Structure formats: C-alpha cells, structure tokens
C-alpha cells in the first residue's frame, strides 16, 4: 500500500518536477528584478545593476534548493517527507474561502463537498441497485431483466458528463428548476448556506444516480442470481419462507462480499472520476479545483490532489480487502 502511494508520488514528481523548477526559477528572477526596480538601491552602471540582480537570483535559487535537480537525494527526500505530513506547499493561483493559499487548506475545504456529493450518490445508487437487483434476481430473463441489462450496457457507454449537460439543458434551460451552475451563491458563513449547497447538489446527484443505477442493479443481480441457484436457498424456499425474505436476507448476505467490494471500489474511483462531472456542473469540489489547476498549471495543487486521490484509492482498496476477509471467512484461509 505504501509502495503504491510512493510510486505515484515519484511518478507525479518525475513528470512535474522539472516544470515546477522552471516555473519557480522564472518566478524568482521576476521577483528579484521587481525588487531592484522598485527599491531605492543606486547603481553606478548597468553592469553593476545586472551583477547585483544575478547574485541575488543565485542566492534565492540556492535558498529554495533550485540549484539541484528535483531527483537529487536531499530535495527528493525533503519533498516526500513534506508530502507525508500533508505539507503540500502553497498554491500559486488559488485560495480557500478563508483566504489561505496553502494547498492543504484548499483541499481540506473542497474535499468534504466532493465526499458529500459522491458518497450520497453512491449510497442512493446502492440502495436502488440492491432493490432492483434483488427483484430481478428472483425472476431472471424476464422482460424487466432484459430491459435492465440493456440499460446497463447502454448507460456504461454513455459519457456521464454528457448526460450532465443534457440535464442542465432540460432542468436549467427548458424548465427553470435547478441552477445551471452548482456553485452556491451564498457565502459559506451564511446560516442558509447548507440548504443552498444541497439545492445546488440535486442536479449532479440525480445525474450520477441516473447514469449509475442500472449497471448497479445488473451487478447485484449477477451476484445474487449465482447465490440464489444454490441448494440452501432452495431449502429455505421449500421451508415456506417468503421469497422476498429469502432473497433479501439470506441471498443478499451471501452475495454481500463481492457487492461490497464493488461498491467501495466504485466509490473510490468516482472521486478520481469527479474531475469531469464537477467541471460540468461547476460543483465546488476537488475535481473542479483540479480542472482549474490544469488550466493555469498550478503544479502544487495538481500534485497535492493527485496525492490525495491516490491516498483515498489505496486506502479504500486496503480496507475493502479487510472487510472482504471479515465477511467471507474462506478468504482468510486462502
């Protein structure tokens, strides 16, 4: 697990390191020239001025450690250590609502909103999926079952962000029910902010659920149908236990481990996939921040978010494995 986080960091660093250095060096040069231009220092000649600027630039570059490449041991270890304690540096372009430009503050501010949107939508999808999937598993290859599998195949080939654009068209342009941009207009300090936020969240939420529920129902049905074919289910039905109870309490419990794994993985993946959905709806979360950061090449933000995404993903995979082993004791032996 740690290795994966480490590799991702090295990869991002390797990809972005030299660019960051170039940007920082340029920034240092500009700063120094500005200081000299505005300062009260008097120079005898142009050469002397240039010499002074150059020496100042060198001093600053050395102070920032920019004279060494990003992969030099000291700088590399420094960066990794900083990241490990979540010191993600300063953003060049963005600030949090409270005005801090530290990447950690910005991400900590945006993260809850992303989690709110994607956890609640995953929760709704799961509930709908369990319900429909349970119904369908009871009568495989019925017309509903075929309809659902067709929906599942077609909705997985739809880009969900395109569905989002259509939803904006329908619910914001044709019928003025929801706002086209999901950034709340009220400031976060406002007591009604949370309601505004929830109101803005409705449209993205509906979209994600709409795109996702049928493939969920399909997955649940697939695992449940396998369990329902087993002998003990037949025995339960023979005992006269109502079919619905058999499906939901006995069938589902045995189908739970793979379903929970799938839920957890899709939740973790949806965070990283949030970039586009949030950009379409203008939802003020991590994905939107990442989208904006790409636009202006704010490297500390990009690295920081990639790091957080990886962390979430890796931790989820790890936790899922633990839960799986807990729910399905056979795995422990193997």
């Amino acid at each position: 697990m740690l290795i994966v986080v480490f590799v991702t960091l090295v990869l991002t660093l390797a990809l972005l390191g030299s660019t960051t250095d170039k940007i920082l060096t340029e920034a240092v040069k500009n700063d120094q020239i500005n200081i000299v231009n505005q300062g009260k220092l008097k120079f005898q000649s142009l050469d002397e001025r240039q010499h002074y600027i150059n020496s100042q630039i060198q001093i600053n570059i050395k102070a920032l450690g920019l004279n060494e490449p990003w992969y030099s041991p000291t700088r590399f270890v420094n960066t990794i250590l900083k990241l490990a304690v979540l010191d993600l540096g300063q953003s060049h372009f963005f600030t949090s609502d409270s005005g801090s430009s530290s990447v950690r503050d910005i991400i900590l501010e945006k993260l809850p909103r992303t989690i709110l949107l994607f956890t609640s939508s995953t929760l709704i999808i799961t509930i709908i999926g369990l319900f429909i999937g349970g119904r369908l598993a009871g009568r495989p290859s019925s017309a509903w079952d075929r309809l659902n599998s067709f929906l599942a195949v077609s909705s997985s080939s739809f880009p969900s962000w395109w569905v989002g654009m259509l939803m904006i068209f329908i619910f914001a342009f044709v019928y003025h029910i929801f706002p086209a941009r999901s950034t709340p207009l009220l400031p976060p300090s406002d007591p009604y902010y949370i309601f505004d936020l929830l109101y803005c969240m409705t449209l993205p939420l509906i979209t994600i659920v709409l795109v996702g529920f049928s493939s969920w129902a399909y997955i649940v049905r697939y695992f449940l149908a396998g369990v329902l074919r087993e002998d003990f289910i037949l025995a339960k039905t023979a005992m006269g236990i109502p079919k619905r109870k058999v499906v939901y309490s006995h069938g589902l419990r045995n189908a739970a481990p793979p379903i929970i794994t799938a839920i957890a993985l899709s939740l973790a993946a949806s965070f990283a996939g949030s970039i586009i959905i949030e950009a379409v709806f203008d939802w003020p979360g991590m994905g939107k921040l990442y989208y904006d950061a790409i636009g202006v090449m704010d490297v500390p933000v990009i690295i920081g978010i990639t790091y957080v995404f990886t962390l979430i993903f890796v931790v989820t995979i790890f936790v899922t494995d633990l839960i799986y082993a807990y729910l399905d004791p056979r795995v422990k032996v193997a």
Partner: protein
Amino acid sequence: MTKEILSARRGTFLRDFVHSRTGVTGVVILLLLILMTVYAVTSVPLQSFQQWNNPAYWINYPKNAAPAWTNLLKIGQKLPEHVILTQEQASITTSFEHGIRTVKHTYSVNFNYDSYPTDFMIPYSAKYGKTPPVIRIDVMRPDGKDFLIYDSSLPPSLSGSGQNYYSDRVFSTDSLIIQNLAVYKNLFEYPQDETMPQVMIFSKTTNPAVLNGVYHWNEKFYLFGNSDSVETSGLILGGTVYGPMGTDELRRDLAVGIFWGAPVALFIGLTVSLASVLIGLIYGIVAGYKGKRTDEGLMRINDLFYSLPTLPILVILSVLIGRSIFLIAGFLIIFGWIGTAKISRSLALQIKNFNYIEAAKLMGQSDFKIIFKHIIPQLLPLTLASIAIAVPSAILAEAALSFLGLGDPSIPTWGQILHQANSAEAAARGLWWWIIPPGLMIALTGLAFALIGNAIESITNIRSR
C-alpha cells in the same frame, strides 16, 4: 488436429453470432459508423476538417444556427435558412458596349420563410489595371420592383499599371446601401426603416410582412481594361438555421465535425483496445504460465497500476508530454491492459494444467511456442470479446480527455466539440444541436462494440457450459 477444431468452431461461431440479436444490432450500428467514415473521407472536403480550428475559414457560416430540418417541426413560423452562394451557382452574362465590358453575376434565391434574414453579405474579388472597375448591385424582387442597393467603384490600383488584385465584402450594414434604399421608402405604404436593409428588401409594400418568392440579386461589374476580370463573387443571406446539424459559436458546420469524428473515434477505440488487450493477454499468460516468482513479480506490477488513479495521471501526462492523437492512444494503452492481464492470468492457470500442455512440455516444446500455439488460441474468443468490450471505455477516456480541453488540437473529435459546447455554456443557453449529436455518437459507437462484445461473450459461454 488443433486447426480442424478451430475452423469447425469458427463456423458455428458465425452461425451463433448471426442468430444473436444484440450482436446483429451492434454490427448494424458499426456498419453505419463505417459508412459515415467512408462518407467523411470521400464527400466532406478534407480542407474543412483541417481548418476546423481556424475561425477565418468559417466566416461565411452563421453563428449558433439550428439544424435546417427544425423548420419542419415549426408550423407557421419557418425560420430563414442560411444561404451561401458562390460564383459556381451564379448565372454569368457578359456584354460589351462603348469599350466597357459588363460582367453580370445573377443569384436567384427562393425565399419562402416567415421571418427576415438576419443580414446579408456580398463577397467579391477582381483583378484590374489602371482604371478601377465599378460594382453595382441590384435586387429584383418577386413583385417586380427593382432596388438598386449598391453602386461604388473599387479602390484605385495601388501598383500603378500592373495587375491589382482586390477582394472585399459588402455588408448589409454598409452606409451606401442605407443611402440607396432611402429612395425606395415611399414605395411602402407603412413606415419602413432603411437602416435595416435585410428587412426592407424582403418586405411586402402593402403591410409589414415577409414577401415570399424568388429574388434575383444582380451583381454587375463594369470593367474598363482588357485584361480586367472578376475573380469571385457570392451572396450570403444570414439565416438562423443551417445544414443538417447546425453550427456552433465559432460558426463551424457541426456536420463536418460529427462526420470526421467517426473515423477518429474508431481509430482511437480500436487501436487502444487491440493493443491493450493483446499486451494484457500476453502479460497475463506469461505470468500464469510461468508461475512462481515471475508470476508474483508481474502481478505486483499489475496491482500497482491498478491502484493508480487513472484520470489524474492521464491528465498530467497529456499536459506535459503532448496532445497528439497518437500520444493519447499511447497513454490510454498504458492503463488499458490491466484488467485483461488479470483475467487471462487466471485462465492460463487453468489451461496450464490440461494434459495436452503437459504433453507438449514433455515433448520438449519451448515455452514461447506453447504460449503462442497452445494457450493463446484457446483464449481467442475471450480476446475478441474483451477487445470489443474495451473499445467503449477507450472512446470514453479519449472523450473525457478532450472534454477537459486536452484533446488533439489539430482535429475535431466529439469530445472536443462537447468541450467547446461546455465552455460556451451551450446547455444553459439551449443550444441542444451542439450537445446532443456528439454525445449520442460517442454513446452509439460505444454501444455498438459493447453489444458485439456481449454477444461474443454469451456465445462462447454457452458453448463452454
């Protein structure tokens, strides 16, 4: 013997495939896409495709025009269609009188709509010597009235006696047109505003309504030199509907983008899925077949790739390395092979214990030969299915990158059209023709391959039962 089994299988496989409804649907959609590709390559001019991101190329087109067929849905308020005519559509007559050559380009437009054009534009270009030619434009209306709207001489030759090439456009807002039209104001029985030439020219004289019928626009060039010539002329009537798919904010004909998107999407989808499935297949089989430490090592690498967040890293790669379509295909392959590798490894683990593999091993065949001659053929149907199933995700991933504004800037893709639509807030402004077709094409392409893949998968599953 192996060959015989395989060929027999192939026969039944095709028969089963033809009988599966989903498979046939998929193939039909795919054939439609291929037809689109052929149409794009043969009929849509290559220039329009290369000039996609060059605003100057699209200057004659309307802005945000809806598709022309929307008029069929609206009864009683047909919107004017955007008309672009070039000298190929003009009837040209030349007469010679008193040493002056008159070249007349006549454009006939049948105007049968319920509202006025938004504007009009007359582009022209001419070559002339010392004396500049005179251009005179008049409009013969369906009710027989003839409006002279423009009468001016071209600017004097700058290069002196040499040949001077001059091109310009007369816009409907030109002050000369407004001056000329003021003369005709008393023809109308109601107040008419000459500063709106596009309204005045197309109005009835009795009541404020559109005069329908055939309008003849005569563009006369009076040439004074022997070697003078009219190079091009044209007539553009600004409308609010255009073509089969309408236009976007930058005046581009969306039909061009949609048609050219098909070959690009097919290319991306097929290359990426083919390459990544093959890599995954061989990777997985080697791991499964070799077992022990090789397996352990290869699978750890696989796990590592599996735990990377794909989209953020794809974004970083294309920001830093490049955005050409081939590079994007390469990036997608890097993350595409992981799933296939896992599946084919587990299958190779099973196949490796079959007797015939043991036999081949005992006969002293090399691992290379066993993998390629005995294991891979067994997995062929699965490979076909996974290639088909991997296509939609590759297309979606490319569309997602394009949508983030990281697509290949030199060609139009469906994802990029949607990206521009999103940055122009097309959804909130109700420009549905800019959003629905590209997304639908992405979905249809993905669906075609998903259906084909599912059909192959279910056929092979049935046989294995």
